[in-house]
């Protein structure tokens, strides 16, 4: 006889899950409607029904090692169709939230990121850091709101009462921006690395036989390629989650445009960083990333287009969340934190640019200061935020593809027409 598996229910885990967005999970009566209606759930051991059962029984060990929570794209079809209002979609996002909170150390940040009551700490860290820099620089430059002109001879900005607003003058990139954000980027990359290793290790408890009979296992390269082409770059999979209602459209378009807005801004940042720091070695590329740029500069144009894309995407996603039916789906703090921070980044970024052009130092510098705080809040806490899905989901999708754990392609059903 096969060996019985010992079950160890964890009541506290049930309560924790209910707190981070799965409050309706106990209502499930295991009819499996959710797994049936899910457009992208695999045929073998489909989600989210099994997750609902595990969650009701507080089977923490299974849920924290569950790859399927990352396969779900939270279209909400399961929650819409659930006859008991158990919101399986919300449970899976709650499980992801729990992963953001607990997957990587220091878990203190995870805790701060889980509730609005810790916002002062999260915002306070960059706020104090840059306030400190601002005060030092103000004492050096003799003003909290200095104006600058470019001194060709000194190859630097120098204060000039008749000059213009130059953010790099007050907060020199070489000393106050790039080192801090560079360090943050390195730390975040390291944390993510550890997170992904941990994640993969947890997946190892999964059965290895998820492959649908006969399907060849892809190599790692093929798996990565597949994920990038099918999921990340094109959002093809996600579109399968449903593209019929206004909310579906808002969600898909919003995310897609927002994603590419970030890509555009990442390209701009890369060009500036590479040409600036690379220019110190290969001097002829240096002018390419010289800021502030003229408005007609193609890189600047790309930056501005990126900013507008952010605004459009945010509008769509926010509209959708505000119009959700609370009996079917809920939004957690994780959702609102991410949307809020990006909103602030986009708005402070755009206003910082406009106020710089209008040359209003008393408004421009504070706005830029806020922009720095928001950007810090987005990137420094990335592994513990919902945006962590950028890495975790991508990693999990690659792993799942390697395992062959992919959704069954729906077969065309013949409909007889009279």
């Amino acid at each position: 006889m096969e060996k019985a598996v010992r079950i160890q229910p964890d009541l506290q885990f049930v309560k924790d899950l209910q707190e981070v967005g799965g409050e309706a999970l106990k209502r499930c009566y295991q009819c499996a409607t959710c797994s049936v209606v899910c457009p992208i759930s695999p045929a073998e051991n489909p989600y989210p029904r099994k997750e609902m059962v595990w969650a009701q029984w507080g089977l923490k060990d299974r849920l924290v090692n569950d790859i399927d929570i990352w396969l779900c794209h939270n279209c909400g079809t399961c929650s819409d169709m659930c006859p008991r209002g158990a919101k399986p979609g919300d449970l899976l996002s709650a499980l992801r939230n729990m992963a953001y909170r607990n997957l990587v150390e220091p878990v203190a940040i995870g805790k701060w990121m889980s509730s609005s009551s810790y916002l002062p700490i999260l915002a306070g860290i960059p706020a104090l850091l840059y306030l400190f820099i601002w005060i030092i620089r103000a004492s050096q430059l003799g003003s909290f709101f200095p104006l600058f002109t470019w001194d060709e001879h000194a190859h630097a900005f120098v204060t000039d009462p008749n000059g213009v607003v130059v953010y790099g003058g007050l907060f020199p990139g070489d000393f106050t921006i790039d080192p801090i954000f560079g360090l943050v980027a390195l730390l975040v990359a390291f944390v993510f690395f550890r997170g992904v290793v941990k994640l993969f290790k947890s997946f190892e408890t999964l059965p290895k036989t998820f492959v649908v009979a006969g399907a060849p296992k892809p190599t790692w390269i093929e798996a990565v390629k597949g994920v990038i082409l099918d999921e990340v770059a094109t959002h093809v999979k996600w579109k399968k989650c449903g593209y019929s209602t206004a909310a579906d459209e808002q969600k898909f378009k919003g995310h897609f445009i927002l994603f590419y807005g970030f890509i555009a801004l990442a390209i701009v940042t890369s060009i500036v960083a590479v040409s600036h720091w690379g220019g110190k070695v290969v001097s002829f590329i240096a002018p390419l990333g010289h800021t502030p740029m003229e408005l007609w500069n193609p890189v600047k144009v790309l930056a501005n287009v990126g900013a507008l894309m952010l605004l459009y995407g945010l509008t769509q996603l926010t509209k959708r969340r505000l119009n959700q039916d609370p009996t079917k789906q809920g939004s957690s703090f994780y959702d609102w934190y991410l949307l809020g921070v990006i909103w602030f980044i986009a708005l402070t970024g755009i206003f910082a640019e406009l106020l710089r052009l209008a040359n209003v130092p008393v408004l421009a510098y504070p706005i830029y200061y806020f922009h720095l705080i928001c950007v810090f809040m987005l990137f420094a806490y990335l592994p513990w935020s919902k945006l962590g899905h950028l890495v975790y989901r991508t990693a999990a999708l690659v792993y799942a593809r390697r395992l062959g754990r992919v959704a069954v392609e729906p077969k065309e059903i013949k409909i007889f027409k009279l």
Partner: protein
Amino acid sequence: MAEKIGVYIDQSGVGPLLNAEELAEFVKNKFGGATPVVKTHPRLASEDGRALIKADVDAGGLDGVLVCGSSPRVDWDIFDFPGVLVERVNLREQCAMCYQNPDGSLPAAGGPLPKDLKVMAEDYLRMGVVKLQKMKAPTPDIPETTKRILVLGGGWTGLTSALNAAAAGYDVLLVEQAEALGGWAAKMYKSIPKSYPYTTAEDTGIQQKIKAVTANPRISVATSTALVQLTGAPGNYEAKLAGPKGEETTKVGAVVLATGWVEQDKKYLEPLGYGKFKNVVTSMEFETMVAKGGLSRPGGGTAKSVAFLVDVNLCTAAAAAPAETPAAPAAPAPEAKKPEEKKEGEAAETTFVYPDMESCKHMSYSSELSSLVALKQAGYVVEKDASAVAYIFYDHMMVPGINERYYKAAQDKPGVMLTKGLITDIREDADKGLIISAKDTLLGELIEIKADLVVVPTAMVPVTAHEPTINLNYRQGPAFPDLPLFDGFVDSNYICFPYETRRTGIYAAGCVRQPMTMGTAETDAAGATLKAIQCLASLNRGMAVHPRSGDMSFPVFNFVRCTQCKRCTEECPFGALDDDPKGTPMPNPTRCRRCGTCMGACPERVISFDNYNIDQIGTMIKQIEVPPDMKADGPRALVLVCENDAYPALDMAAMRGHTWSPYVRFIPVRCLGSVNTIWIADAMSRGMDGVLLLGCRYGDDYQCHFVKGSELCNRRMANVAESLNRLGVEPERVLQEQVAIDEYDQVPAIIDRFMDAIIKIGPNPFKGY
């Protein structure tokens, strides 16, 4: 004996082919002075039609009214004329509407009157007139009655019943065997929800109920008291009670039986570890444990996790295994009953042995309660300790009806965890906790889980599975008959009629009838109480109770010719007849339900009703014209139709456009049990080619309104077949078929199949003699 009969023929009832005037002419010619008034009317079931008859009745010249047209099952309120006998001839549904030509074709609309239809209508008219001629108005003997109701059992159901009866203005004697009122409910911590929103366990309310009962001046309570014997008949029972002050006898009119249940023998729970492991308790034990305080385990320490095993497949499998349980009580019980009943008939002093009917099956019968109780008690666990958990393993979570809301609410508690699953094993851990293994669960194929305490279901066994309880002083014995068929639950489950038992005047309520919740028991108590009141309020006017409610007729015995054969006393399904030492039947009219089974049983034909008797039906049969040549004029068959199900099924079939052979003639009977074999002899000697009996289903899933009627008829038909054989007549000419009221669509096929068989057999050899 109606001698001056007014015959009224309804043109709207006889259809387009038959002519009311011609039929009236036929009646006048046939009966002459016996029918001084013969009238037709375009639509009798109208103000005008009623006024026409009323005027003739008021004029005083008539003692009988024969309304010919629609079925007696409709418009009976219109054709109700006090002071005269009223009879109906069903020319609409069972003659005009169901007519088809002998070849199966339908007569052309507006065409000539088919000969066979005319013959049929005339047969029915003749039968109608003679039926009235052979009828008397029943004059019941109205007995002295007491209106006091005896409620047996002082638990939740009995208390409710007593309060209901008192509220309706009846005096109540409440008898409880235990020292205190309250029964099981008083031992419980809480009840499953009884009121909206049906989501939280609530206080049982038993103390308030006890208070209300003891404070009610109409209710007298006798605790520590048992019913030793119940003598007499409804309206006039003498209850012999044994109480703390010795025996006393008191008069009661009707009885509500609310004696409830006892715990099932715990040996059936052994496969789930009960008895072997200290920390395995029954749900009733757990209930009292929680009522006393908390979750402390019998084996020491406090339970932080409690597993409720609603799945009892291990127990039922063990009980089904042949060798393991020598007691296997279900199987021998039915046989044990029968020889014992016979003995009872032989000599009353033979010691009465009541078969024990408890078995493992009661676990399955209690499954709804087991599910609900597990949900309730899982709630106790999280209520008493917010950090404790309750696991529920079920094969079927049975929460019918409104209790679905309770299931949802229970499930919503974080500490209550449910899974479907089959328990495969239970063993003790070193710390006296229990490890439960289960397969086919929602959590995996084969799992095991540890719990500090295990709760197994308490199955409910009706008190009547162990003892007669009602202790009747009846010829047929002290107990309800045939209870092994219901594994001891009181036979109140006529499909359509709860609370009824086979002893008139005694109505069952609560868990003695079937396992039920306190909420259901409350409704049940009200129902049974109303039935008891209805009984008392009928018999004091000489009327029958269900199912012939309001019937004033009763069996009359012509004792001069009685041979003391005891068939009537043995066969009466309701034990209405006692007998004297010589064996002469002693009728008890208030026990009688007027089914006529005794009349059907009597070989000497000494039993009759004023308005329903051997001579009457026999004379009616003789009115059916049987043509001497079957080839030329078709065969003839008599169909004796049970009034309760088969007759309405025929009406419905006709109304829905079914037609059948024009050679059958229907005579309604009160019950197939009332069919005396002499009627079959009458029909056969008249030269009729066959007799079909249409009645209710019999056997374990009987639908007979009088429980045993169709079954007894079937037994008698075996004798009939034997007699026919002896006479050289094919026994296939007499056939009993079972029809349920909803099987109207099959009735035409039954009739046609029978007629085809008759035609194949050929003419009755007695034809023409």
